[in-house]
Structures are given as C-alpha cells and as structure tokens.
C-alpha cells in the first residue's frame, strides 16, 4: 500500500469531483489542531522529565536509603508554590523577588550580548579580511569557561551586580558572534551578487539580505548564547555576592541543608529555560525556516 504523509491524507479526505475541477481544495484551518498537537507532545516531554526525576527520588529514598532524603518533584514544586509570597527563611526575600532579580540581570546582559554579537558577527562574517583577524580574539574569549571569567569580572567590577552581568555578557556574546558570523558566511554568493547588481546599499545588504538569510544561524546562536547565559548566571550568583537572585538563594539554602528549597530553585531555573527555548526561540526559528523554504510546503 502507498504510504501517505499526514498532510496528503488530510487533503485527500477533502478532495471531491467539484474541487478537482476548480483546482483548489478548501478545508478548515488546522491552526488549533496544530497547536493541540504541539501542546500534547510538549506536555508528554515534561511528564517524561518528571518521571525520570521521580524514579531517581524513589531509588535514593526507598532503595539506597540516603542519610538525607532526596526531594521529590511534588515536594519541590510545593515549596515553590509555598514561597511565592513568603520569604525564603534567612534571605529576606520571596521566590518571586529572587527570580525577578535573576531575570533582570539576564535580560540586561543578554540583550547587550545579542546586540554586540549580531552586529559584530555580521561584520566579521561579511568582510573576509576582518574575519581572518577578528575570529582569533573571539575564539580565544569563547574558549574561556564561564566561571573562569569570575576573577576577571571581580578585578574589573569588584563584588556585586556589575560583575555578574559582565560574566553573563562575556559568555553569551562570543557564542552569538561566532554563530552569526558563520551564518553570514554561508549566504550563497549569487544572492550577494544579486543584491550587489541591484545596487543595494550597505544597510539594505545587511538588513534585508544577509541577516534574514542567516536568521536560522542567528537564532541558533541566540539560543545557545541564552542557554549558557542562564547557566553561568546561576553559577555567578552563587560565587559573587549578589545577595539576591536564584543562585544566591540556592547557595544559602544549600548551606542550611534545605535541599527541598534548593530543588525548588532548580525547578524555576529549568522552567524558565524551557519556556525561553521552546516557546520563544522554537517558534521564531520555525518561522524563519518556513520563510527560507526549509520547512515542507506552503
């Protein structure tokens, strides 16, 4: 039997003699259906994640019998819900305030890194001569591990907020720059030539030709950049005395052996990471791929 894709099956259901005549097949929009499908697979993924965690907790608590109990998903999520407007004991702030403080640092550092990375990466990618020199420092900075920036940041800014923001910026900016430059360098020559013969100014060249073509790479760079920014942010908050933020809250909770609380913080960190990646970047990436004709049909 012929194997048909789900698209073909759906269209085939609606083909009749009349619309074969007209050349067009009308059917209801699949928008909600698509959204439902996406939501179901997403929820399934979360369930699998929670199951893995739950199994780990069972193993640690019921079989291995650790000295301290391993927090379960229910306990940790319960802790988060319980501290939305109640201070985490000893830090003087509730979970919302810690989260907002972390997100604020992330937003400042990451938007700076995105702007610098996209502009710098575009220039590096387009001008071959600048690239061969410029790629060296970018690669050097990129190979500095996240936390190795701590001494540099402390030297430059001392203890506090600015140092944390600097570390996040440094880590994500290099990743974004490399990805953007790589994407621009992949733009086919004939496209650049076509824009050139039309008389495209430099700004049209970058904004309407190069950057859209490299959009998938750019989004990928932003995605990886934000991922590493988020990770290093928490670590930086744990090391640099920022006083407020999910990282410092976790550090405090761990010092007081409140593992349920620390796990609660991890839940928030993961939830935010997942949201940014899956909801924000995935949809932008999908849109860009569709525009570039990398996705099937329509």
């Amino acid at each position, binding site marked *: 039997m012929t194997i048909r894709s789900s698209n073909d099956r759906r269209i085939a259901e609606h083909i009749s003699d009349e619309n074969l005549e007209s050349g067009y097949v009308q059917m209801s929009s699949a928008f909600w259906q698509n959204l439902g499908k996406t939501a179901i697979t997403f929820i399934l993924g979360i369930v699998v994640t929670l199951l893995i965690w739950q199994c780990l907790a069972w193993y640690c608590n019921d079989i291995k019998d650790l000295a301290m109990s391993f927090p379960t998903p229910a306990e940790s999520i319960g802790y988060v819900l319980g501290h939305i407007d109640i201070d985490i004991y000893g830090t003087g702030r509730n979970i919302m305030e810690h989260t907002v403080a972390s997100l604020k640092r992330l937003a400042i550092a990451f938007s700076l890194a995105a702007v610098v990375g996209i502009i710098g990466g575009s220039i590096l990618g387009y001008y071959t001569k600048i690239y061969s020199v410029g790629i060296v420092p970018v690669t050097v900075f990129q190979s500095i591990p996240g936390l190795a920036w701590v001494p540099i940041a402390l030297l430059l800014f001392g203890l506090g907020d600015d140092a944390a923001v600097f570390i996040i910026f440094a880590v994500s900016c290099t990743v974004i720059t490399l990805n953007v430059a790589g994407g621009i360098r992949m733009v086919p020559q004939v496209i650049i030539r076509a824009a*050139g013969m039309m008389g495209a100014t430099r700004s049209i060249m970058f904004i309407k030709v190069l950057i859209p073509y490299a959009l998938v790479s750019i989004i990928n760079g932003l995605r990886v950049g934000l991922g590493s920014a988020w990770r290093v942010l928490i670590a930086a908050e744990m090391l640099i005395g920022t006083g407020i933020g999910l990282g410092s809250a976790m550090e405090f909770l761990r010092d007081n052996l409140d593992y349920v609380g620390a796990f609660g913080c991890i839940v928030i960190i993961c939830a935010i990471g997942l949201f940014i990646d899956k909801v924000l970047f995935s949809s932008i990436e999908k849109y860009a791929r569709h525009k*570039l004709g990398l996705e099937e049909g329509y």
Partner: protein
Amino acid sequence: MGQIALSNVSKAYYTSRKKDEARIVLKDVNIDIEKGEFVSLIGPSGCGKTTMLNLIAGFEGPTLGEVRFNGNPIEGTSPERGVVFQEFSLLPWFSVLSNINLALECKNVPEKERSAISMKALETVGMENFADYRPNLLSGGMKQRVAIARLLAMDSEVFLMDEPFSALDEQTRAKLDNDIVRIWKEKRKTVVFVTHSIDEALLVSTRIILLSKSPGEVIKEWKLDEKLNRDPMSYDMIKIKKEILALMPTCSCSN
C-alpha cells in the same frame, strides 16, 4: 570605443587551494559593444560565457586586460548593468512582488510607485498572478521569469542575461524571446545574452559572438542587421546557422 569594451581580457582561476596552478578560462578576448546592440554569446558549456558576464557586471575583475563601461574601467557592480543569473537568485523570504520592489528601493524609487512598476514588469513575463507567492513555491521557469521581471523593473542601461530562458518550454521561450526583442526595440537597451541555442541567438540578436571551447576565445562574430528577415527558414538565417555549426567546437569539455 563602445559602451562596453573588453580589451585583451584574460581570466584565470587557481585550480587548487595550494595555488600552485591556475587555469586560463578566457584568453585574450577583444569585444566592443555599442550602445543599443543585442549581442548573443554562444559557445560550448564551460567556455567562459558566465565568466565574461561576471566581468562586465563587475562581480570579478580580469586577470589581464581591461573591461570598460562608458570608457571607464569597471570597478564593481552597478545597477546600470542588471543581471539575470543562470541560477536561482531571488531572495527566498520575500514574496515575488517584494523581491522586485527591493530592486526599486535600491534605486530610490518612492515607495508608493514601486508596486505599480513591479506589477507591470510581472505582467510582461506573465507572472502577475503569483505576485504574493514566495519564490520557493514557484517552478524553475517561473523563478527565472521573476528574475527577468526584476531586471525589467530595474530598467538598467545594460541587460546581462545568462541563459535566461533555458529552463522554459518552447512556447514560453518563444514568447519571452519576442518580448525581449520588443522591449529592446522600445527602450534600445544594450543586451548581452548568453544562450546555448543557435536558433534563439539568430532570432533575437544584432550580433552573435561564438566562443571556442575552454580557454574561451572569440572564434568569429556575425552581424545581423535589425531589418533582416528572422524567419528560421529564410536563406540568410540558414546560411549563418550553417556557418556557426561548422565552426562550433564539438567537445564541450576542457582539458
């Protein structure tokens, strides 16, 4: 000197990354093209026709010799010399209409006037019903027609066309050949037209230049008066076709 002048032009490319060898792909080419001429370049595949257009367009410079436009050495691309590329060259994330509008934006045509000009160009190539499509939803021939429409809208002084119709069926091709000739007669643009088809060259050109197999040299040129009867069965046409066929290099591959 004509509008486009290639004097003693040679072009060579390295054959490997070691850069220890270069291959000559165009050899001592001298061509002088007057304003308003319709020149067809014919020759076997790989003989350097696209290379020659690249030099005229300003995408690349010659290894030896000089390429001049209106008397000045060509230093880079210019919208005065518009190109229809041999391969797909539309911007995939813009609609057909926006692709052409972009060319007009580059020319600083006011935004309000762009779409009307673009639609007119699309009508000329019979693509007006696909203005909202994105290029990758079009067939190969349709994409090429949009690229031609882009050039028409740009209204360059020189039209450089690299096998623009080779992806099209006979009828569409014949129609577009006629359209191009009609547009050329109206606007008196200089056209440099690369084709594999001798018949097409005979139909449209005022001059045919035959290139040798690689490295490309000019073998011979034929001037065809504009008023000449272009009926492929006419005595003149058959005579020139026979001459071209007799001189046409047989092997299309170099080395």
